[in-house]
């Protein structure tokens, strides 16, 4: 899933301060906190994704960056300048709207030229810039069409060209690919990243689609109920979530509730009703503390026979990180199969198995009694 291959963002602006600084920003609608004390630094050249389900405050935060909403309190600094008091039309920020908001009465050419004309640029300059933008999004042949005469993917490219034409310091993308169908979306994600990187603009995007965020963004901020829960690279968010919400929101996860039994600097043992968990790294916790052990389905192994000694790397004692159960359900998805296993104490776990060989030696099926195991290095202990 985490297949991004972007250049890493530069360390910062010339003076070392982050390019975009969001400082303790609060937005209240009546008595409800839509955005609750968000602090966030974004570096120049970054593609930053705000990820969350609907109503988490990500769109409100984006609209405050664009200037359509005013923060109840807090500061937003762009290249060191506070932009909170600037009207939308005074900000060096452009936005690509959800479902594009292209002007239906104007041609593709006029849509792209709209912002340039407001700036009162000379005619030749406008013509040159529009031509350059049409080139960039490969829509030269469609300049005279009206938006409704274009396909969804073409409209998306016009919207991108329109928002880039003014060479904004910051580009905002609101659910950039939400209106496209799945097949087209996959291709467009990389195309979009390609164009953004070619232009070199700093970009903040909002999405509820984790795959979109992970493909496109250099860093992701996971939001829930107006707060940012975790900020990190896609792999950090996925492999080391810092709370149950993030672990559960990004991909799927098996959570085992348990208590810390042994707390050593180099390993911990956590007892849960399913099994004992041996984790070969220390945690910030104390013995007896209630925690959750998170294991991703693809980090689990499944077989009818118990694991061999060499398959259970660096385990101090046999019997840890392993449970037995019965396959209740399975979903064959082609590249992988998902097994829903009911463990002996009643807990349901999800295990995915990559179908590397066309004909697996042993086919597992409904009702099979199986062993499920995982390595101590592949789990995350969550304290909240």
């Amino acid at each position, binding site marked *: 899933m985490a297949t991004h291959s972007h250049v890493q963002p530069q360390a910062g602006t010339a003076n070392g301060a982050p390019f975009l600084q969001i400082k303790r920003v609060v937005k209240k609608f009546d008595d409800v906190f839509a955005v609750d004390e968000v602090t966030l630094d974004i570096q120049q050249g970054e593609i930053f994704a705000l990820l969350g389900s609907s109503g988490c405050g990500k769109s409100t935060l984006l609209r405050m960056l*664009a*200037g*359509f909403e005013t923060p109840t309190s807090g500061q937003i600094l762009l290249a060191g300048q506070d932009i909170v008091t600037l*009207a*939308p*039309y005074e900000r060096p*920020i*452009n*936005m690509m*709207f959800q479902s594009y*908001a*292209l*002007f*239906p*009465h104007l041609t593709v050419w006029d849509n792209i030229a*709209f*912002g340039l004309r*407001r*700036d009162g640029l000379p005619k030749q300059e406008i013509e040159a810039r529009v031509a350059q933008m049409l080139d960039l999004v490969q829509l030269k042949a469609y300049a005279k069409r*009206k938006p*409704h*005469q274009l396909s969804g993917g073409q409209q998306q490219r016009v919207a991108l060209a*329109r*928002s880039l034409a*003014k060479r904004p310091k910051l580009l905002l993308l609101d659910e950039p690919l939400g209106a496209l169908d799945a097949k087209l979306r996959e291709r467009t994600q990389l195309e979009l990243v390609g164009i953004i990187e070619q232009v070199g603009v700093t970009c903040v995007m909002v999405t509820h689609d984790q795959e979109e965020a992970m493909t496109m963004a250099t860093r992701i901020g996971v939001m829930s109920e107006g707060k940012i829960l975790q900020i990190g690279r896609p792999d950090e968010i996925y492999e080391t979530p810092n709370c149950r919400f993030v672990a559960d929101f990004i991909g799927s996860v098996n959570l085992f509730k348990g208590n810390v039994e042994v707390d050593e600097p180099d390993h911990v043992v956590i007892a849960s009703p399913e099994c004992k968990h041996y984790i070969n790294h220390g945690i910030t916790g104390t013995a007896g503390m209630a925690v959750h052990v998170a294991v991703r389905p693809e980090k689990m192994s499944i077989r009818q026979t118990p694991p061999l000694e060499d398959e259970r790397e660096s385990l101090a004692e046999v019997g840890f990180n392993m449970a037995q159960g019965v396959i209740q359900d399975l979903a064959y998805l082609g590249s992988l199969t998902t097994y829903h296993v009911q463990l002996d104490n009643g807990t349901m776990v999800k295990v995915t198995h990559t179908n590397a060989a066309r004909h697996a030696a042993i086919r597992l099926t409904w009702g099979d009694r199986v062993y499920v195991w995982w390595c101590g290095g592949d789990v995350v202990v969550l304290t909240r």
Partner: protein
Amino acid sequence: MAFTSLKGLSLYDKVTGSWGRSAVIGVPMVFLLAVFLLPFMVVFKISVSEMETVTFSEVLTWAEGVILLKVNLGNYISLTQDSLYIQTYLSSLQFAAITTAICLLIAYPFAYFMARSPADKRPALLMLVMLPFWTSFLLRVYAWKMLLADSGVFNNMAMALGLISEPIKMMNTPFSLVLGMVYTYVPFMILPLYANLVKMDLRLLEAALDLGATPWQAFWRITVPLSKNGIIAGSMLVFIPCVGEFVIPELLGGPQTLMIGRVLWDEFFSNNDWPMAATVAVVMVLLIIVPLALFNKHQAETAGGGRA
């Protein structure tokens, strides 16, 4: 799912497609034919016949195996030669155009704020626009007589307050005529404009602001062009009846306010010259319909089947 819905559609098409669709267009067509085209043909026939003491001559006669078609174009010729008619037509068009322009100026901001007001307040505002329709139109126009007369409410009040020493002549002037027509027809401008503006996608305005347009520029570049259809519909609803308006010029107009509706009335009922009156009516319809048809054709061509 796609299959069943596709099948459902084809079934729907089978039931309604062949005759259903033509019935949908056909019924109003027949209705218009009966209530508009046939009476128009009768009027047209009268306009090309001759007046004989109390009745008028038949256009088509059948005598001794000979069909006689007698078309009298005398009325049309005299219409073009009499400057009174030409002036009246021009004056009617002018008053209608002024009324339409003033209605648009009043109705646009009105409809705009109605459309932008909170959704729960809009039905009440809509009711207020339609409130005047609850009382008789004749009564309301008549009330303006009381307000505008030399010894009417406005003049009396202004004189009592010492603003003026003698009454200002307002009744039976172009002012009172246009005021009456604007007052009567402004709801017909507001309603289509409101219907259009309330549907507008407000994100387009945000997009315009985002691209550097001031709110004022966004209004002129986005809102106004996108409400073009509402402006056209409202203007037609005001302009067309205003050209042929009779009651308002009769009650509020004066010697300076020549309107074709009154000339028509005079020809019918004072001069009792029905063919001439019919001619005036036919020319009036042509004056309105021909430019409108050309305009519609132009619209259809430039729009190219695009959405509003």
